């Protein structure tokens, strides 16, 4: 059984002693407040690749098309006037050309009109910025055939700018996308990514001017240099009034000149409050409309007057996942200790040894975690692809908690040196995430119990700082999750298993066979054959253990019952806690 006690839980127990009375009328009916645990990383749509940032971006910027409310299949036009299809002739017969008629009369928050040129600029900028382990590969891959603008040696690929230019063009009031080969999820990707920014605003604020001469300067930039980092000028239903990083608070105000009917809410507040007890009290008092609450805290929010729990919400995600970094950046890195295999640290290639990884894999109590932390909601994950997607491999073997096997692998690792000398390093999770914290604690407890020379420290880090350390490959082992960018198994296979994907790039993990299978799976159009490829891929994943997948589960949402108009789309960032605020109102 997992032993877990921390101030927030004790506080939660104390809070259970009292309960607030229900209040019938909606408090602050024009204002919607969501209390979460994380601050965002960046407001730049071409940089941000985390749910906290993308939640704000979803509400401030707009894509060409969007998922129709809760559907993860049906799309509606947003800044395009039609959703391209073969039937309406906007997708060519060979599936390689997409035509988007661009909506007229749409204005950015600064009052300037949105044009097809802005759409072109936004898509190009999204691809060419290509920050390491960022979202650019989502469009680079289908539109240019390259998952990155840089090669393995981190050098710019010759001709990549021309490829990007060739892929996006403007014809009158239309934007045309040309793909080197058919890529079925293209529209689903565009439903969430590369939202439209103002080219004129970008240039005025010192961003890329759209020319070939200057683009390299803006390729893989540092986060804070972008004018989009903390400012926003979109066309969305809400404008970013302020991001206060001191209080981890976003204030969004209604765009009264929105091209559709203005939102019913006047103001949206998204605020990071780390202490669960405080979040809960604010929900009870009606000062928060919804709060982030992990599964272990469900009993604390159940039966609160005026609060609604919606459980068993489907997910298209894999969370938590324990990632091993294959080439740890040990230079000046406190997380890896001495940086050597001397019992006081770990070397850069510590997790390069498959026996180390398997030792960790057999040290985790999967069943205990699912039963105690997840309250039995869910089943052990079978691979990187979740149950909700085709390609899920039900027959795939999984790891179990087995101390003997763990010991065997640790004894074999590094020719027996690890068992003899021991190790000491730090694992990290983002502050406030209780399940991820528990994963770290279970690993620490179980692994340290195998050998007194094995030492693991667990550290909580604020979200933006966590991402910075992770992107710098400084975290030897980190616990994170993956929420689908679009509902297709490729969006799990690529970012989690392909060497050019988001996580393998951070982990410095590369397996040519897996790369081949991921590419093959993407190109295959026959469903049965595709499933077979993904089954092979996940078998390989089991053997290589580049990470530990733990649970395939459902989520729940905690909100005031006066909240109306909310829908659950598991593809949306931070679902089901965060929301597309446009449809929400209170009564």
């Amino acid at each position: 059984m997992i032993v877990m006690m921390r101030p927030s839980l004790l506080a939660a127990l104390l809070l259970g002693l009292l309960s607030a009375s229900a209040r019938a009328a909606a408090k602050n009916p024009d204002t919607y407040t969501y209390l979460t645990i994380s601050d965002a990383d960046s407001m730049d749509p071409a940089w941000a690749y985390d749910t906290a940032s993308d939640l704000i971006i979803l509400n401030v910027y707009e894509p060409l098309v969007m998922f129709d409310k809760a559907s993860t299949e049906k799309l509606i036009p947003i800044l395009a006037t039609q959703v391209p299809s073969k039937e309406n002739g906007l997708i060519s017969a060979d599936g390689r050309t997409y035509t988007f008629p661009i909506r007229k009369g749409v204005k950015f928050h600064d009052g300037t009109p949105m044009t097809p040129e802005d759409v072109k600029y936004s898509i190009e900028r999204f691809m060419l910025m290509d920050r390491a382990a960022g979202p650019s590969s989502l469009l680079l891959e289908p539109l240019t055939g390259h998952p990155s603008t840089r090669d393995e040696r981190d050098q710019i690929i010759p001709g990549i700018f021309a490829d990007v230019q060739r892929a996006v063009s403007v014809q009158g009031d239309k934007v045309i996308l040309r793909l080197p080969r058919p890529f079925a999820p293209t529209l689903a990707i565009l439903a969430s990514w590369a939202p439209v920014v103002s080219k004129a605003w970008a240039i005025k604020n010192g961003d890329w001017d759209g020319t070939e001469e200057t683009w390299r300067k803006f390729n893989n930039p540092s986060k804070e240099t972008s004018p989009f980092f903390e400012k926003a000028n979109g066309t969305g239903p809400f404008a970013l009034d302020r991001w206060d990083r001191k209080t981890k608070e976003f204030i969004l105000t209604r765009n009264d000149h929105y091209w559709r009917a203005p939102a019913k809410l006047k103001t949206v507040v998204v605020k990071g409050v780390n202490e669960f007890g405080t979040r809960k009290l604010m929900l009870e008092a009606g000062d928060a409309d919804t709060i982030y609450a992990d599964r272990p805290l469900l009993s604390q929010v159940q039966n609160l007057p005026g609060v609604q729990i919606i459980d068993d919400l489907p997910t298209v995600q894999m969370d938590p996942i324990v990632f091993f970094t294959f080439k740890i950046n040990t230079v000046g890195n406190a997380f890896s200790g001495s940086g050597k295999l001397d019992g006081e640290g770990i070397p850069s290639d510590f997790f390069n040894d498959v026996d180390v990884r398997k030792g960790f894999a057999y040290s985790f109590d999967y069943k205990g975690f699912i039963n105690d932390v997840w309250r039995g909601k869910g089943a052990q994950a079978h691979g990187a692809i979740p149950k909700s997607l085709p390609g899920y491999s039900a027959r795939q073997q999984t790891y179990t908690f087995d101390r003997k096997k763990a010991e065997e692998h640790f004894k074999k690792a590094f020719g027996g040196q690890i068992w003899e000398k021991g190790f000491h390093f730090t694992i990290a999770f983002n502050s406030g995430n209780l399940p991820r914290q528990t994963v770290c604690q279970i690993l620490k407890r179980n692994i340290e119990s195998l050998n007194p020379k094995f030492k693991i420290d667990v550290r909580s880090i604020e979200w933006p700082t966590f991402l910075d350390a992770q992107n710098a490959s400084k975290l030897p082992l980190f616990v994170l999750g993956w929420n689908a960018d679009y509902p297709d198994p490729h969006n799990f296979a690529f970012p989690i298993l392909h060497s050019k994907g988001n996580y393998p790039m951070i982990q410095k993990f590369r397996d040519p066979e897996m790369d081949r299978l991921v590419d093959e799976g993407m190109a295959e159009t026959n469903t049965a054959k595709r499933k077979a490829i993904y089954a092979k891929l996940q078998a390989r994943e089991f053997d290589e253990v580049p990470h530990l997948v733990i649970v395939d589960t459902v989520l729940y949402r905690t909100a005031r019952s006066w909240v109306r108009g909310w829908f659950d789309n598991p593809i949306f960032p931070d679902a089901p806690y965060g929301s597309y605020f446009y449809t929400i109102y209170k009564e």
Partner: protein
Amino acid sequence: MFGVTALLFCCLQYLSPEMRASLYIKDPRQLSQLDAVIEKYGLRKPVYVQYGIWLKQVAQGDLGYSETAKMPVADAIRSFFPATFELTVMTFFPILIIGVIFGVLSAVYRDKLLDHITRFVAITGYSLPSFVLGLLLLMVFYGRLHWFPPGRFTLDTDMLVHGDSFRHWTGLLTLDCALNGQWAAALDVASHMVLPAATLLYISVALLLRITRSSMLEELTKDYVRTARAKGVPESVVIRKHALANALIPVVTLSSLLFIGLLSGVVITETVFDFPGIGRWGVQAAQQLDVPGVLGSTMLAAFLFVLANLISDILYAVVDPRIRVGN
């Protein structure tokens, strides 16, 4: 101050030069420039040279960049300190008044009902963890009565103080709201500080009560008190003018320490009440090995400690005329 920062600097030598250099780096791509950073800050040089370089930077107003606050350390202090200062002011004077008055009364009415009550308050206050008390107060006064919400202010005040027309005269929000003629906003900001202030007051006043009481009890048993009483000096004068004046020395010492403790930030209270003060930032900086942040917050604490010591030394002379500089 020099002592504290020098000690901290010595402790940081435990980290390798590369590790310390990486703390100056904000972008992973700059890792290739570690040697340049090591050279610039003299991180391989003897500790006193490094300390000298750092002091020179500090003298130029450059305290470095806090990765935790995502801003320069000086800006972080400017940003977080006013909230803590306001909370301290709101808390400290009630602590002083209640602690001294009830400490004296408790000693004067030793073993009477008032003494029992104050001792009970002192013991419970001293033994209650601040997060438990904070949450209990929140549950009752916010969860039940909806009087005092957590955070810094409501959304209306938030919009007001960040609006173009609002002038930040002092950085102290309550005062600034009042100076802008926004009385409702001033009241709103003050109401958000009531519960954290009450939590700190209840926990901190306990110590002052106990010290004042025991100090008074000691003075009241001394010969000069007995003599004064024998000479027929009224009891109120004996207590106020004779015993209390002498009993105040340890009270002044403790008060200055309490003041520093409050000003340096009260982490748990700030966390429970979601109050953006300097304590929470300092702890986050320490957790995340944000060395410039840790050095900055420590330097501030050391500066406050020196200042408070100076003030308490002056106050010693005020409360006890026998104490003078040079004596």
